[in-house]
Each structure stands twice: as C-alpha cells, then as structure tokens.
C-alpha cells in the first residue's frame, strides 16, 4: 500500500444545479505511485479537474456532493481528514497548478507576496520558522528556477503586469515551493501559444525530474503528455476508460473512445469536441445507462447499455474499461 | 476594520498621553461653585445687533446685553434705565434725556450722550431691525452735554416714550474698534459683522460665545446696577451665571432635554399636548403669558371673493371661535373686538363676531358671489412652523363647507409666506398669521392696517384705504393720551365695519419651565388662572434681574 501515493476508488461526485443533480464523476478509479508521472487526458468537461480537485478536497460543497468512494493519499482517506490534517496535507504533500494562471493569481497582491506566503506556511508545516530574508531569498531562487529573468523586479510586480507565459511560470513556482510529493498540473499553458506552452511544459518536466516529484498532468494536448509522463489515464464523461503506460497507449489504444480521440489528432488546442467522434458528450443530468460512451460507440453491445464496464487488465498494467476486452 | 483599529489605537494612545501629562494646574484649593445655568430654546435666527434684530429671540437676547434709555417697569409704566429723567418740550417735538453717570460698558468705557447719539444714528442709517419704529419720527439726535441727549422729532408721535425701550445704546468706542469693511464710508460696515456675534453693550450679561446656528452663550457681567447700587437693577439671588439660548424648537429634542433637566425653559412653539405631557410626567411647570398678539385670519380685500364685505362677514360669522380656544389652543381667549383687550385704548363697545350660521347665510346672500358659490375656491395658507395652524385651517375648511364654500389649504414655510404676502397678486384669500403689536397701545396694533404695511406679512388684507391711513396717522400724532384713545376708538369701529380680518384668538404664550426656576411673572404679574399670568405690557425679562434658579 505504501507504494501508492494516491488511490481513488469508485469516486462519485455530483453537483446540484438549477436543473437538478448532475452526476459528473461516475465511479472514478485512479492510482499513482510515488515518483510516478501520470497524464490524464480527455475532452473538456469530462471531469478531469473535478477528479484532481477531489484529491485535495478543494471542491466547493455545496454545490458539489461526494456521493461515494474513497480517496487515499499516502494511505489516509482524504475525505475523512479534519480541517487541520487537510491543511497540513496541502502544505506538505500535494500542490496544484491551476488551469488558468490569470484566475489563479490574486490580482491585487504582488507576485513576491503571494509566493512568500506559500513559503511561509509550507515551512511552518515542516516545523521551520522562516525570516523575511529567508522568504525573499527562497522566492528569488524559485523564480530563478522557473527561469524568470530579473526575479527582483518580478517579485514586485502584480500579475497583470506580466505576460501569460510568465504568469504560468509563477504558478509553477508557487506549486514548487509548497509541495514535494505530488504535483498536479491542470492543463498548464493551455492558453499560451504553442512555442511558449512547449517551453513551459519542458521546464515543468525538468523541474519535477530533478525533484523526483510525482506528477498528475492534465492535458488534452496529447503530444505534450507523450513526452512527459510514464502512464496515461484516459477519461470520458466522468469515468476512466483506459489506463496504460504512455508508449503502450499511444502505440496500441484499445478503448473505442481512445481510438477515436487519437484519430482526431492533430489538434493542439482544446475546447470543442474532437472531430472524428460522432455525437457529443452526454448530458450529466441524465447520463446514458451503462457505459457512458455507448451512444457514440460504434461497437456498442447490449451489455454496454446495462452496466458500466469495470477496468479489465489486458496485461502489463494496461487497463481498459470496455466489454470488448473482458466480461461475459 | 483597519480603520476602526487605527481609531481605537489613536484613542488609547491619546488617552495614555493625556494621563501621563504632568497635571500642571494644581487642584484649586477653593473650587469655584458650579455655575448656575439658565438654558432656553428659541426659534432662530437670533440677531444680537440692536440695529438688526427685531424678532422674538433677538428681542429676548438684546435687553440682556444692552440697556435702553427707559424701560417699562414691572408696574407697567415707563421708568428710568440709562436715563435718570426726561423732559418733553416744544409742543411734544423735543425730548431731552438726562443720563446716569458712571455706567460702564462691557469694555469698561463710560456711556455718555455721544454713545446715545451714535447708537441712534447707527440705527437710523442702517434702517434695519426696529429702525422702522423711529425712522418716521426722529429728526435729529444731539449731545447737549456729556450726560444730556436731545431728540428732535419730525412730527408728533404720541406713544414715543412707550417705543423708546426698543432703542438700545451701544458703546461707540467698542464698535469703532471693530469696524469691518462695508458700505458706510468711513464707518465701514458700522461694526455689523462684529456685532453679529459680539456685544458692545452695558447689560447685565455679555456674550461669552456665539455659536452660529447652534446657540448663544451669555455670561454674567459686573453690572452697573450693582456697582452704582441702584434698586431694581441688581441681580437677584441665584441669578444665572450662564445663559444659553439654544436655536431649536424640535419638539422631541426639547422634550428630551427638559426631561433630562438639560434645559430650564422651552420655547413658545411647543405643541400644547407636549407641554401638558411634560407637566404631567416630568415635573415641569407650564407658564403662560397673556400676550398682546392676535391670531388672525387675514382676508384679502382686493381678491375675489373676499373683496366683498358681505362675503367676509359671512366668513366671520361662520367661523367656529369656540372650538379654537377650547380644542385647538387651550388656554387662549377669544378676541372681544378688533384688538387685544389688554391694550390701552381698547374699545369694549364692539359686539365681537361669533359663530352664527343664520347671520352668515344672511350675509352670504347679500354678497355678489352668492350665485356662483360652486365655482369659488378660497385658498388659505398656514405657517409650516406652527403645526396647530393646520387644525385652524382644517376647522376653517369645515366651517366654510357648511356655507358651501370650498377651501384649499396650503402649508407654507414662514419665510416663503412673507414673500407671498409681499405681492398683491400672489397673496392668498386667507392667511393664518400671528400679529404682534409694535408698541403696547391700540395704535401699535391697528397701524398694521396702514397702506404702508400692505406689502408686508403684517397685512394680507390689502386694504389700501386712504381714509383709514389718515385716521391712523392722525391718531399716532396725537400727543394727548385721552384724545389719542378717542381716535383709536373711531379706528376700531371703522375696521369693525370693514371686517377685513377674522380675529381668531388672543394669544397666550405657553412655555414649559423647570419647577426649580423662580419665574419673575409670578412676582410682577397677576395670576389669572392656574398657571397663566398676565404681565405688564412691554415688560421685558432681564433674566438675572428677575429670574433666580434654585438648584435642580
């Protein structure tokens, strides 16, 4: 068990909105080992961000409702943690790079101030008291680490005064100064142009490589995932449909959805539904019975309309949730 | 939140700093006794320049700061004040006053004839305030010698001595030291700006602080009545050290302050209900002063339909006088003629108008508007500052409804009312107004019917009647009192026949006063009923000289 850093079992998360209850996460299973780098891909709105936010218990309740499941982080159930334990966990164990660096940076505080706070509290969690000078030094260091020119000036800037790429790096810096065990990167650099996104991702890769941090990288830029992670989870409409080593997945995608997704490439920017897959993502208010992909699946069988398929291991840790590869 | 914290810190820091200050003045071994306060509320503005002030609160303050040559004594006759004696010569056209020696002003200058001349010249040149009482009559003022001053009159004015208490003497030197820039040439502003908030007088009190729009604070002064040891001009026991005239009439505030004994006396604008309540619950006494004023419904005699004498008489007969004095203004009395019955020269022979609907219909039928009553609407204006007037208007409306006359009621702030009444076209059919007398005689009341007063708030009737003008002028010029009163009678009869005014009531000025205040009227006046006192006409309250305050 100690090898598993995160182990999500059969997680169901619903949201309560005007129209009713949206059943967003529908039995998510997800594991990541220590030191492992895992990619999470899928269309926009398939529940990737909800999944990772659940790990840190960041979802707003309400409207979110955790219907069932467990999330183990280093063996402890996150859902049962006290406020104190949660805070310690967030300071020491996990940190996250949010999807939109503009929204994730507080517009009214200077960058240095924001990074400084994180240093202060994460050091506090480690039982260290840091002086102002220490904080400043560490801030400058981490800014240098994310290859920011003129860190002193950057420290004294407000987010609005920085370019998109710089803001993204600040977010990475913020995540780096906090946690050591697991870094969650939610579509880093999505809103940047391709070259900068590439730079950012490469930088991120180098940094985690140096530190031996586990990573969950969410992206729909398949190419980016390819070079960075050891293993990939493919998600569709609130559940994991396939998990495999990166090379295996790219060389031999099994799930009809994964196949369709790869057929839709090259497509670097996210947003819409990739071409090549007919139909659209299901309505979470009344999702299809059984496998949620069944309305769009060319291979749909009667069984698919009944029950959601579990993961079937097809060897070498390659798992796929499809009755084509197991079941009766 | 930060701001709050900062403020708290500042307060604490300041308090700490203050506590740690070395206490410089050692505690007084012989601590001064707590000053005795006499605090009263008034309707403002209060203008303490004797050449400017002319309304109630001004005339309450000025006699405490300044002296006149003569005054009306508690017995109701003209008596000496700054002047020890006087002579009338030249067929009533020359008045000579002998001044007291050794009267010192608040700045320590002796008051001489020059000061009197200066004061009268100043009053007449500026032409404001009470100057109108003297302007038509005073020709020249001369200082015969240091203590003798002589007034030459332009024409005979019978009641001049009763008017003289309204002329106050200023210390010329003090005024000249405080001239500002202004339109009077060498005399600059004639000291106007300075005298608005300071005094240059000789009265028992002097201005300590004048907080504009808030209150006037006067403090006791070493009075010449004391130093010269003159009976009747000395402070009584427990005379107030500090007098405050507070510029508010807001009933709830006044009530609160009376209940908390933060006020010794209320203004006269409090609703009667409020006063009665105070008497019942807070141990306050109600005092009433039978006044010389009348509450009048002035009818516009040059505007339809009140331009018809029968129509006016119909109104006068339809009005319910009884209800006013019993329901709306308790403690007041009905008018028994066309002037206040307490005024010298009053003619008791006139049969007063009382409610009589038969007579009213009779008069109405004789009026030229009888057949067009449906088209007629009378407008009645009442003064916003006197809430009870609304009920008079409502009563009027109800009374007129019985004659089939419709009425429109308009509430108007006093100052805008003055404006309206200055214009013959704008003046409404009926206005509810208090009229006070200029000097305590019938002449001081009826003179408001003179054409000169038509464009003022004193007359909404717009009589513009030359015969009446001549009668008034002639009466006022008559020096002999008996002759004069004879002429007053004729005037009263003449006005009675014109019926230009519905005389609603004779006022009683009601105020609340703390029971620990010795009110002078008890001693000097005559007790009429439970709490109402009649006071000598023209008598003014010099607080320190008559009013003592027992410890609350």
């Amino acid at each position, binding site marked *: 068990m100690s090898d598993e850093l995160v182990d999500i079992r059969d997680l169901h998360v619903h949201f309560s909105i*005007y129209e009713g209850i949206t059943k967003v996460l529908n039995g998510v299973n997800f594991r990541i080992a220590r030191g492992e780098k895992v990619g999470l891909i899928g269309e926009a709105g398939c529940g990737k961000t909800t999944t990772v936010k659940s790990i840190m218990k960041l979802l707003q309740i309400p409207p979110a409702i955790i219907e069932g499941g467990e999330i183990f982080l280093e063996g402890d159930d996150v859902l049962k943690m006290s406020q104190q334990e949660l805070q310690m966990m967030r300071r020491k164990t996990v940190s996250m790079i949010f999807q939109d660096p503009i929204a994730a940076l507080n517009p009214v505080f200077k960058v240095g101030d924001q990074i400084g706070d994180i240093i202060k509290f994460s050091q506090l969690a480690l039982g260290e008291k840091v002086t102002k000078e220490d904080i400043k030094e560490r801030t400058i260091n981490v800014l240098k680490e994310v290859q920011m020119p003129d860190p002193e000036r950057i420290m004294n800037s407000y987010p609005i005064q920085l370019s998109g790429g710089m803001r993204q790096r600040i977010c990475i810096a913020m995540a780096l100064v906090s946690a050591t065990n697991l870094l969650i990167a939610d579509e880093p650099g999505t809103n940047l142009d391709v070259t900068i996104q590439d730079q950012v991702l490469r930088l991120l890769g180098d940094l985690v490589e140096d530190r031996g941090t586990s990573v969950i990288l969410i992206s729909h830029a398949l190419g980016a995932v390819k070079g960075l992670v050891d293993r990939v989870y493919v998600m569709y409409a609130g559940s994991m449909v396939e998990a495999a080593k990166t090379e295996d997945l790219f060389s031999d995608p099994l799930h009809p959805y994964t196949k369709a997704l790869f057929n839709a490439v090259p497509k670097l920017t996210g947003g819409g539904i990739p071409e090549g897959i007919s139909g659209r993502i299901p309505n979470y208010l009344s999702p299809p019975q059984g496998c949620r992909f069944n309305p769009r699946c060319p291979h749909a069988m009667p069984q698919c309309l009944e029950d959601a398929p579990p993961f079937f291991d097809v060897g070498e840790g390659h798992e796929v949730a499809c009755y084509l590869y197991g079941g009766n | 939140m930060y701001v709050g914290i900062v403020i708290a810190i500042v307060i604490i820091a300041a308090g700490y700093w203050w506590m740690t200050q070395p206490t410089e003045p050692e505690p007084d071994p012989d601590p001064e006794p707590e000053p005795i306060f006499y605090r009263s509320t008034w309707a403002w503005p209060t203008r303490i320049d004797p050449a400017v002030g002319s309304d109630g609160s001004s005339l309450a303050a000025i006699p405490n700061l300044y002296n006149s040559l003569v005054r009306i004594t508690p017995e109701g006759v003209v008596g000496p004040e700054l002047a020890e004696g006087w002579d009338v010569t030249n067929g009533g056209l020359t008045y000579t006053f002998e001044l007291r020696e050794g009267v010192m002003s608040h700045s320590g200058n002796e008051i001489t004839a020059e000061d009197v001349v200066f004061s009268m010249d100043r009053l007449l040149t500026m032409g404001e305030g009470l100057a109108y009482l003297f302007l038509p009559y005073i020709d020249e003022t001369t200082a015969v010698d240091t203590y003798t001053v002589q007034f030459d009159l332009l024409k005979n004015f019978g009641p001049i001595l009763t008017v003289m208490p309204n002329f106050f003497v200023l210390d010329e030197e003090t005024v000249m030291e405080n001239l500002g820039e202004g339109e009077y040439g060498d005399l600059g502003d004639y000291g106007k700006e300075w005298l608005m908030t300071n005094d240059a007088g000789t009265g028992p009190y002097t201005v300590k602080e004048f907080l504009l729009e808030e209150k006037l604070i006067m403090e006791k002064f070493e009075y010449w009545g004391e130093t010269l040891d003159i009976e009747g001009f000395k402070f009584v026991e427990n005379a107030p050290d500090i007098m405050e005239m507070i510029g508010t009439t807001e009933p709830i505030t006044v009530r609160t302050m009376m209940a908390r004994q933060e006020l010794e006396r209320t203004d006269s604008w409090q*609703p009667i*209900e409020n006063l009665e309540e105070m008497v019942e619950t807070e141990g306050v006494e109600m005092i009433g002063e039978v006044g010389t004023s009348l509450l009048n419904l002035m009818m516009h005699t040059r505007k339809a339909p009140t331009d018809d004498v029968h129509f006016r008489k119909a109104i006068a007969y339809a009005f319910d006088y009884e209800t006013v004095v019993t329901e709306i203004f308790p403690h007041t009395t009905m008018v028994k003629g066309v002037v206040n019955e307490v005024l010298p020269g009053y003619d008791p022979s006139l049969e007063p108008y009382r409610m009589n609907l038969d007579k009213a219909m009779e008069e109405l039928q004789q009026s030229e508007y009888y057949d067009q009553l449906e088209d007629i609407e009378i407008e009645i204006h009442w003064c916003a500052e006197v809430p009870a007037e609304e*009920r008079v*208007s*409502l*009563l009027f409306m109800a009374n007129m409804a019985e004659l089939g006359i419709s009425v429109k*009621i308009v*509430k108007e*702030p006093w100052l805008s009312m003055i404006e309206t009444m200055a214009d013959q076209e704008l003046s409404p059919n009926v206005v509810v107004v208090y009229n006070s007398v200029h000097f305590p005689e019938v002449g001081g009341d009826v003179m408001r019917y003179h054409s000169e007063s038509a464009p003022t708030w004193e007359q909404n009737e717009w009589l513009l009647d030359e015969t009446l003008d001549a009668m008034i002028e002639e009466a006022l010029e008559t020096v002999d009192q008996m002759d004069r009163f004879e002429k007053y009678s004729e005037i009263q009869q003449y006005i009675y026949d014109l019926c230009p005014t519905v005389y609603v009531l004779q006022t009683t000025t009601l105020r609340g006063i703390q029971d620990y205040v010795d009110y002078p009227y008890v001693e000097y006046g005559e007790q009429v009923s439970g709490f109402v006192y009649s006071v000598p006409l023209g008598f003014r309250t010099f607080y320190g000289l008559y009013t003592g305050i027992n410890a609350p």
Partner: protein
Amino acid sequence: MNTELMKERAKRNWYKFSKNPLSIVGLVVVVSIILIAIFADFVAPYPQHAFVFVDFKNAKSPPTLRNLAGTDLAGRDVLSRIFFGFRYSLLMAVSVLSVATPPGVILGLLAGYMRDTWVDTVIMRVADVFLSVPSMVLALAVCSMLEPTLYNAMLAITVMWWPWYTRLVYGLSSSIKNEYFIQAAEVTGASTLSILLGEILPNCLSPIFTKMTLDVGWVILIGSTLSFVGLGAQPPTPDLGTMVSDGSKYIPSQWWISLFPALFIVLIILGFNLLGDGLRDMLAGD
C-alpha cells in the same frame, strides 16, 4: 413551440426569483401596497378621513379596534390616511421614473452610440453636472426654489434623476454598438434612430427595468424626505412623509401619529428593494 419556450423561460425565471424568499416577501408587499393604493376607497376603514375631516372629539385617540393606528390631532384615522398615502408615494415614484427614464435612456443611447464625438461629450458632461452633488442636495436646492407642492417635489426629483439612466445606458450602448449585428444594420443602411431604438434599446431593457424597480424605493425615500422638510406634499394631502413630519412634533405623547406612517414608508421602500433585487438576480443570469 414559441409559447413553450416562453413558458419554460418563465418557469426558469420564477425559479431564480423565488429561490430567495426575500424576493417573494418583496413581491407580496409591493402587490399589496399597489392593491391598497388602488382600492383605498374600499380598503380604508374611514375613507372620508383621508383629506379634510375634523372630529376633535375623537382626536388623539391611541390605537384601538376602532382606529387601528389611532387618530391624529384633527381626529382623522391614521390608518386610512396611510392607505391613501400609498397613492401619493406610488404616484411620486411612477411619475418621476416614467418622466425621467425616457429622456435619460435616449440621451444615453445617443451618447453611447456616438461615442467619442461631440454629442457624447456634451450629453455626458451635462449629466456629470447633475451627478456632481448628491441627489438629495440637488433635490432640496431645486425644491426650495419652487413653490412647495407635491408636483414640484416630483419635478425636482425628476430633474436630478435622468442622468442616472443616461449613465447606465451609455455604458451598455457603447459596448453593444461594436457588436456585429449593429454593424450589419449600419451596412444595410438603417437609420440612426432605428438602430438606437430597434437594435440597441431592446438589449438594454432588462438592466433599465431592474434599475427602475430598485429606484422606486429611492424615489420614495427622497420624496418623503422632501415632504418631511416641508418642501413636498402639503396638508391635508395624506402624504406619508408629511404625516411623519407633522406627527413627530407630538412624540412621545401621540407617538402613533408619526410612527405608523414611518413604518409604512419603511415597508414600501423595503418591499420595492426586495422585489428589485429579486428581479436583478432573475435577469442577471441570462
């Protein structure tokens, strides 16, 4: 299909509106007040007491079953007068807003559409002048210069009210003007007037109506303040502000004469504010 859609929309709006129970309270209060105002003659216990009526025998009666809110100094039933007072409060609000809004909106549309031209400058600077002092001060100043009547008070408030709409609509229309459909209309040669009224205005309507509802409370508040100072409605008009003002002279002895009208002023303003907020929440999401 269309009615279906509208039904669905109405249902959705009602859900959003009724999500907040306070909005419902507001709606109930406002509807009741409007009904009472309209049917005052039938609802008021003593309709004849509303204007001129004197009954000194029953004056100053504290609240009893006969007179639920007591009687005033002339013996008039306070509650009846309050009910009639609603008419004047509503009249004030409705007339001020209905007179001030159209010119304010049109000027705002024009200035926004002609942004950065002299038209914009002139209109918006003039509006700035009216907004350069608090509305209460300007209303008092204007009122003091006119004869004190209810209508002049309305006039004074109207005069200072229009620029708020100009400013609101200006912001809206200057952003809408860059939308494609406006440019399309321009290309097809639509007249300025038809663009303003036909294209831009419909897109500004819901903020305007929301503001109007919210403004009802303000107008009534300012109106009652003017009456309180004596610059508004005159007796015997049963205006709530005037009733408070006159009755306040008899506190604490006859507290009911001013307290009940005061409570109802608060209630009206409260009702409209709650309703306005509910409407805003309802329209905001779309």
